[in-house]
């Protein structure tokens, strides 16, 4: 009988718990509401209108070809907004409401500033590894000048260690079929760009000031915000794409490989290059100039995946015939480098002789000053006023001045990232970012000084390629493979 409950007792229990429940509720004991257990940083205490220096984050579209973000790592610190707005002049410089897209020049400076590693490049590592494993593909790799002075940092070497030849050894060990030098392509760019500049100076004066176009971040910035200056941009492709187009035409023909079976990979200090290779204009004869871009950081990942320690790799030489480089090509990685290299060769084109010593160590265009000015006197052409600008917020200020007052310069070099490519968005991260940039710049100029040839036109392989393929700078063939057009993107942001 004891395990049975009488009807009366049952009703007592039910009614009692009902009364208890009602009592608990009436006295306000309803427990805690759900949520609110987590943490947000101190910036977000208050109404949200308290003026803090840094807050929020930049918008990164899922379609962005260069960068992506892992929300789980994002702490909303606002560093990316700082980079995008104050260094690059993108965030906050387009009108709201949005039109077609959220402006991004893919520079990757937000990646560099992100302290929690939430923003990264969109990795091509696996795709490149797959291409290497595919026996039907001939995988060609090229290395940018700025990566040669920074890759070592990923393997514990001191900042500013030049490891160009070790990198060649490592890339060969990793299974790439040929290793070429983007510095060679930089020399090629200088041949074209210096010729174009001299041509503009003497004949097409409406295209002066001549604006450089080797930085994809800057080019997209110009397309977005200064479409009226697009005809001033040099029509030269960037060195990366010049080499890509040359590999899939001249080189493919030379070694007898179907260009469709060539996979062009580049090692770049840059995330914007990943956007650049996807540009529709950058293909010749239905062949994409470039297939994949690895940032310096990604290359370190790839090498480590393959078990290759850069410290233990023997030096090797770049493959011929697209592997020789001069000092002029090597300094492309630093702000002012393109200008200095171009002036050396422009001097030669105008006078037929190599430039004097002061133009070979042209200090006014070197260093980290936001806008550097210099004047080069070239016999026969006269004095050429030159400006060198890095960091796109600086570029905005400079160009607003040019728009308002006209340009007192005939040649302006723009690099999106502070310091030029050595401070690019794909470079190894350093606790001491400014010191790292200085040391990389020093290393780059040291490479120039020690090189046997200092001017692009002295490059023997460049001369060979012109003799056997392109003819001369600005020839019809050179225009086809080495020059490009630009896209007006102004209307994607502005009414």
């Amino acid at each position, binding site marked *: 009988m004891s395990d049975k409950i009488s009807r009366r007792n049952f009703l007592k229990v039910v009614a009692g718990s009902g009364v208890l429940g009602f009592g608990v*509720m009436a006295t306000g004991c*309803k*427990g*805690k*509401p*759900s*949520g*609110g*257990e*987590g*943490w*947000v940083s101190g*910036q*977000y*205490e*208050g*109404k*949200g*209108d308290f003026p803090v220096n840094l*807050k*929020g*984050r*930049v*918008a*990164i*579209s899922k379609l962005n070809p260069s960068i992506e973000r892992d*929300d*789980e790592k*994002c*702490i*909303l610190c*606002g560093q990316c*907004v700082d980079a995008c707005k104050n260094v690059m002049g993108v965030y906050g410089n387009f009108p*709201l*409401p*949005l*039109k*077609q*897209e*959220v402006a991004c020049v893919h520079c990757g400076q937000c990646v560099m500033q992100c302290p929690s590693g939430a923003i990264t490049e969109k990795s091509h590592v696996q795709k490149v590894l797959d291409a290497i494993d595919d026996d039907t593909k001939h995988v060609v790799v090229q290395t940018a000048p700025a990566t040669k002075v920074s890759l070592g940092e990923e393997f514990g070497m001191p900042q500013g260690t030049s490891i160009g030849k070790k990198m060649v050894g490592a890339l060969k060990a990793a299974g790439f079929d040929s290793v070429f030098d983007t510095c060679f392509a930089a020399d090629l760019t200088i041949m074209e760009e210096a010729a174009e500049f001299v041509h503009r100076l003497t004949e097409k004066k409406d295209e002066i000031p001549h604006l450089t176009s080797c930085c994809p971040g800057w080019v997209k910035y110009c397309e977005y915000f200064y479409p009226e200056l697009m005809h001033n941009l040099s029509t030269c492709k960037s060195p990366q794409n010049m080499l890509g187009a040359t590999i899939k035409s001249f080189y493919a023909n030379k070694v007898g490989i179907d260009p469709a079976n060539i996979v062009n990979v580049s090692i770049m200090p840059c995330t914007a290059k990943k956007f650049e290779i996807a540009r529709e204009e950058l293909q010749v004869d239905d062949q994409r100039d470039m297939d994949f871009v690895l940032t310096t950081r990604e290359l370190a990942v790839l090498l480590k995946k393959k078990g290759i320690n850069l410290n233990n790799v023997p030096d090797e030489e770049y493959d011929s015939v697209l592997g020789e480089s001069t000092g002029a090509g090597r300094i492309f990685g630093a702000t002012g480098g393109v200008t200095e290299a171009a002036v050396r060769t422009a001097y030669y084109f105008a006078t037929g002789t190599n430039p004097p010593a002061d133009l070979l160590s042209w200090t006014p265009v070197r260093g980290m000053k936001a806008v550097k000015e210099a004047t080069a006197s070239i016999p026969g052409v006269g004095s050429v006023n030159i400006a060198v600008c890095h960091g796109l917020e600086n570029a905005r200020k400079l160009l607003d001045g040019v728009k308002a007052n006209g340009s007192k310069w005939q040649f302006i070099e723009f690099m999106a990232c502070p310091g030029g490519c050595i401070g690019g968005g794909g470079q190894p991260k350093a606790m001491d970012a400014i010191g790292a940039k200085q040391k990389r710049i020093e290393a780059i100029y040291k490479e120039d000084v020690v090189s046997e040839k200092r001017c692009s036109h002295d490059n023997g392989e460049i001369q060979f390629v012109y003799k056997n393929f392109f003819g001369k700078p600005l020839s019809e063939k050179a225009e086809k493979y080495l020059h490009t057009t630009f896209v007006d993107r102004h209307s994607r942001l502005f009414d």
Partner: protein
Amino acid sequence: MAVLVDITKCIGCEGCTVACKRYNQLNFKAKPRNVKDGRVELDDNRWTVIQEFQGKDKDKLRFVKKQCLHCLEPACASACFSKAIQKDKKTGAVVYYPDLCVGCRYCLVACPYSIPKYQWEEQFPQVSKCQMCSERQTNGDAPVCVAACTTGALTSGTREELLKKAHEIIDSDPRYVKHIYGEHEVGGAEWLYISDVPFEELGFKTVSDTPVTDYTKSYLSKVPGFAAAWALFLTGLAVYNHRVEKNRKANDEDEQGKEE
């Protein structure tokens, strides 16, 4: 506290969704449970989402923040018989108390916007929805999503204040649609939206201005009184019967006594 969403100012950074997940300790790794037309919808680990719309000619890129609108007359709260969802009188937030919830999920059905979601994969599941950071609001802080918004797309304040501001904006700027979503929808909500693209094109549901609770209020409000009266009636009946029985027994006993 109410929130005004100016859709024209959102750039889609999704900082608000990250702030929400962090503050409410939601799972970042959870895969989206509901995806409609390529847009992620709310689920138990997403109390707020940003949805992208491109416009007819792909030249009006808009991002719409979706979360509980915190109705003035919440249907979910009225459907909840265990009082697990309550409208907080001070903050205006419609708050869910898991300790009171019995898991019936009537609120999921009741909500005209299909906002409340359920933790289908938990062993002891709860309902989950935006709480409008009710605890932050008690301290005088704005909801964390509002605090995280850098472009000014989200602003918080009292409902009257924000309605006034919203009217000023849509009256002075001809680009805006002359409608404040949330002002009258199902009786009004704490979250108000203004936009330059018609709301129907941005995935907003067209709902009636009548609060959902109004449809049942007329008769459901009489239920407690009716129940009490009915109980009283039955008690009376029982007492009466009891008494009749007692009297009859007493009479019987008297009669028996007389016979003896």
